């Protein structure tokens, strides 16, 4: 992924391997750059090409762009990992929430008790 990434004409350009990364990962990640950059995502022969152009009022100097490129690369990996967890465990999350609010539709009342090892009583 990193080899094609560069800073060019005051813009950050990053190429993301479409066979490894989902569009969901790309958009969830670039969402957080929208406060400082105009974000553009395009598909080119199966890869995603991300362009970040600093907004005029964001006060980002040319010298700071390598930091943001590094942050983009790191965040892409972070969101990719989150994507994996979501894919592998999404059904457990759904089951858990469904059971929590099912009022016994999925089983009898959930038998668990709230453990309170530190001794906190319920707070109103």
């Amino acid at each position, binding site marked *: 992924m990193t080899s094609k990434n560069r800073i060019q004409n005051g813009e950050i350009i990053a190429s993301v391997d479409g066979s490894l990364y989902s569009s969901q990962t790309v958009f969830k990640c670039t*969402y957080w750059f929208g406060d400082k950059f105009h974000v553009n995502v395009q598909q080119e022969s199966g890869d995603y090409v991300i362009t970040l152009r600093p907004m005029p009022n964001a006060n980002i100097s040319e010298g700071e762009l390598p930091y943001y490129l590094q942050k983009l690369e790191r965040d892409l990996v972070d969101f990719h990992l989150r994507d994996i*967890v979501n894919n592998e465990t999404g059904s*457990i999350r759904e089951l858990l*929430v469904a059971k929590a609010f099912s009022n016994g539709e999925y089983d009898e009342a959930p038998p668990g*008790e709230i453990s309170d090892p*530190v001794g906190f*009583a319920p707070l109103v």
Partner: protein
Amino acid sequence: MPIRFHRLNDQKEVLVNEVGDHLVVPSGTFARLVQKELDKEGEADLYGDLVAGHFIAESPIPTLIDVLATRYRTKKSFLDNFTTLHLFVVSLRCEHTCHYCQVSRVTQDKGKFDMSRAHIDKGIDIMMQSPSPHVTMEFQGGEALLAFDNIVYAVDRTKELALLHNKTVTYVICTNLAVINEEMLNYCKENNILISSSLDGPASVHNENRKRPGKNSYELAIRGIELSRKILGKSRVSALMTTTNLSLEHPIEIVEEYYRQGFWNIFLRPISPYGFAVKNEAKNKYEMDKFLSFYKKALNRILEYNLQGEFFREDYATIILRKILTPFPVGYVDLNSPTGAVTNVVVFNYDGAVFASDESRMLAEMKDFTFQLGHLDTDSYEDLMYGEKARKIVAAGTNESLPGCSDCAYQLYCGADPIHHHATQGDMIGYRPTSTFCQRNMEIIRYLIELMDSDKKIKSIFESWVKPQF
């Protein structure tokens, strides 16, 4: 198991499971965990912590899923009783002219700016329809005590109806204390009414924030706090501060003032977004940076008192810490998901208009009626609480499904605030990268976890804050 993670700093990251337990681990742990690179034997401690805390499971559907479901339901059980807090704006009149207050009127015109008895009656009737066996009736202004006759009328009527409807009621008067007297306080004592007063800091800050003829708001507040404590008892009198730009320059002095006045807690409330310029995102971010720096300086001073053996608590941190450290629900309007507006609080304005929160009525004073749920003259309980507006607000106030929040590790510790986002970004859903709500909560939550991780003494102090005090 479904888990989320967030980077705390360069060395550490935090993992949070689906029921809000957290574990601070070295950076890179989440990546190794996802890539299944953890060494069960070689890293037995970490592996044990992850299994015990339900961050990972050794079987595909963990046997403990029922326990987790119960815990999840408990975390959200603040919803069970629906709206409990009912604010009655008994008068819009005030003798102060605080520059940050958009609503109050300096006037003798009771007829125009005091709540009518008919509207008080209807508000009480709506409150009695709340599914909750316990409700809170809070009197607000203007200066609520200028309409003390309204308060007496409302309390007396509510007492009768509460017996009929089998409800317990907590009464609170929010007041700047300037006009409080023994007669009023004796009535409060007879009726178990709590006093929520205002104290912005030392005289130099308080009097500058709270203008009134005589420039003696501070002196009257201190006199009122002392008199209220004498008649009602110390625990029945609390104080709230309003943070202004001037306050931001005096974090230490404000904390020390609260300590000097014998309070064992202080609520470092964020600056109201209505002081923020709508859609001026760069300026808002800068203002929030200033607030965060104020907050940390003040919190560190509070921790110094605690490290010297005093009990002195910061309330915003305590709300978040209860969510982080205990399995129990925390119903605080601004940090709930679904949002506490409507589901936790409703406001009956002096003119009979009904709003989703106190901030909503401030917006209405600026001619923005987005969060007006209806009117006491025309709408039923169902219209107000389950109407189209209420549903729209709650849908936009559920962070599990908001962009940015849906993957955030702090989702369970944070909340959603459609009113703040509407006011500052012109959109109830909001845009997290420029949201000052997100900026504030993300940093405060991160900071609290980092503090606990860095110093076991601070962790013990925080644990003492979340234990019930009475």
